[in-house]
């Protein structure tokens, strides 16, 4: 039996973070694709590390499509220990594919683990698929390349074939509970290693997380691009205030962040937040791939750009060729 493994990231209360369920459901869909392609049977396995794992989370993992949940028991949660123990487990129980959330901790574990397993890792994928290459199943991981216009699909020559995926790229579907499920507690040889890192003090920056959480859950997002730049009027602030007034969220492109107009907490895209609102409206956004990859799951997309050939219109449901600044000023009057 082949398996696809998902790293289950947990918080301080041993609750599994939502992004892991998104990956489980995607892996479940991949297992079906594999079966169609060459009859292979795959199960989805989730691995968490620590002393305990929240019971409700385990049930959610099954519902999202997980057949097996593994808890690797260990004393502390240093990144090196987590990676070493996961490497030991995967050496004894090899997986075909391993997927990680592209979060702060997920990235660290992915980088360390794949180095230990001497295998490749594709970062920040926006699409995952199985394909047949020379009659062999390959995970096709697609990510935007730099320079804004191209996507690259990357394959791994070695197993496990590994990738990281940001929050919000895939959707969790809790109707996929497999017939046979099991839970395994795994005891590794290493319970503790001398910690060379010590956390002395930690301040929670609640505010920031709030901005991102709100954007990720928003129903309407208004996005300001560099096209709103103006020597006299601060249209970024105008749009942000307007968004607040109508109960929508406000986001920006990286170019706006790079020009120090706005903090990167509001950045939408590959290196920012992924959003999937009911309505996305852009004001002076060109439509670079890295931006698109973070908003393409929006249900309705309206784009305002002065250039009728702007790339953003390729992704739009509503195309508005006009001066976005003027529209902002008129909207202020409408409301």
């Amino acid at each position, binding site marked *: 039996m082949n398996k696809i493994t998902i790293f289950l990231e947990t918080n301080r209360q041993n609750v599994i973070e939502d992004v892991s369920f998104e990956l489980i459901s995607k892996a479940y869909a991949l297992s079906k694709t594999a079966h169609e392609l060459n009859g292979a049977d795959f199960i989805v396995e989730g691995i968490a590390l620590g002393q305990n794992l929240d019971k409700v989370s385990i049930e959610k993992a099954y519902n999202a499509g997980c057949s097996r949940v593994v808890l690797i028991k260990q004393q502390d949660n240093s*990144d090196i220990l987590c990676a070493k123990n996961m490497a030991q487990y995967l050496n004894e129980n090899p997986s075909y594919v391993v997927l990680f959330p592209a979060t*702060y901790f997920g*990235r660290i574990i992915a*980088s360390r683990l*794949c*180095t230990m397993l*001497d295998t*490749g*890792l594709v*970062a*920040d994928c926006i699409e995952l698929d199985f394909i047949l*290459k020379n009659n062999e199943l390959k995970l*096709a991981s697609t990510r935007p*390349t*730099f*320079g*804004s*216009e*191209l*996507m*690259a*699909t*990357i*394959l791994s*020559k070695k197993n496990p074939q590994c990738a990281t995926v940001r929050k919000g790229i895939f959707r969790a579907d809790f109707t996929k509970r497999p017939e046979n499920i099991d839970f395994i507690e795994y005891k590794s040889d290493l319970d503790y290693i001398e910690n*060379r*890192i*010590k*956390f*002395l*003090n*930690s*301040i929670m*920056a*609640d505010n*920031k*997380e709030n901005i*991102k959480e709100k954007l990720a859950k928003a*129903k309407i997002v208004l996005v300001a691009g560099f096209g709103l730049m103006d020597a006299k009027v601060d249209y970024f602030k105008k749009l942000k205030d307007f968004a607040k*007034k*109508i*109960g*929508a969220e406000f986001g920006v492109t990286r170019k706006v962040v790079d020009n120090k107009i706005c903090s990167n907490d509001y950045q939408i895209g590959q290196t920012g937040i992924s959003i999937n609102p*009911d*309505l996305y*409206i852009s004001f002076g956004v060109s439509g670079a791939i890295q931006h698109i990859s973070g908003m393409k799951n929006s249900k*309705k997309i*309206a*784009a305002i750009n002065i250039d009728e050939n702007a790339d953003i219109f*390729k*992704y739009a449901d*509503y*195309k508005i*060729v*006009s001066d976005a600044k003027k529209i902002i000023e*008129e*909207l202020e*009057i*409408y*409301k």
Partner: protein
Amino acid sequence: MKIVVCIKQVPDVDNIKWTKENNLDRANMLSKINSYDVMALNYALEIKKRLNNSTITAISMGPNQAQDILNYALACGADEAILLSDRAFGGSDTLITSKIISRAIEKYVPDYKLIITGKLASDGDTRQVPLAVATLLDIAAVVDVCDIKNINDSSIEVVQKVEDSINDISLILPALISVCEFNKPNYVPKIDDYIRAQNNKIKIYDANSLEFDKSEVGIIGSPTMVYRAFRPEFTKEAVEVKLDFAKFVSDLLLTNGAKHE
């Protein structure tokens, strides 16, 4: 204290040009030092000011042209510059790049205490190389460092800025840090600095000197491969709005549940 700074030459992404065949127009491309690596270098200069007997080794992997950024590092005050360059290295993915860099550090700076890298390189943005290097060298690492509070010969105390928290962390050396912010002005080298740096020759090492077989590196040695590169095509047909733009947007907002006064 021996400090290693890893720097990378990247395309100037604001000035990228494409050929008709969807390839990077390398001939007309400008390059620069990755901006996070400038911060890494400045942290090293800062430490050198604080701790006597510190030396800085700047390491870069890349084509011959990457000597430009190593000269810049020398002019800023690095004591030694190493270029890892070989045709065979071309196309190395993050794992192989990390193997090349970590082997160079083991071989040429074996008594290093601290490795400083930038948070990410603007051209790939995978953030994998710093941690892979740390893993290959079997040392501790802290990413997203925004300040150094204390440092002595055996430990360092840093401030880390991540998504939801700001953390004070102490690390026993040797260790690696990747930096995301530098809160002072960067050192800007003067003409004199460049003249002084000219006496300091960049050391160049290839696959052979690093004892790699050519089949272990580059495109052949890398565990990942680019299967295809493409321009995404979309089937969406946008409805073009012709008149009353603001009214249209306003109606769209209202039908999607925007608050009304």
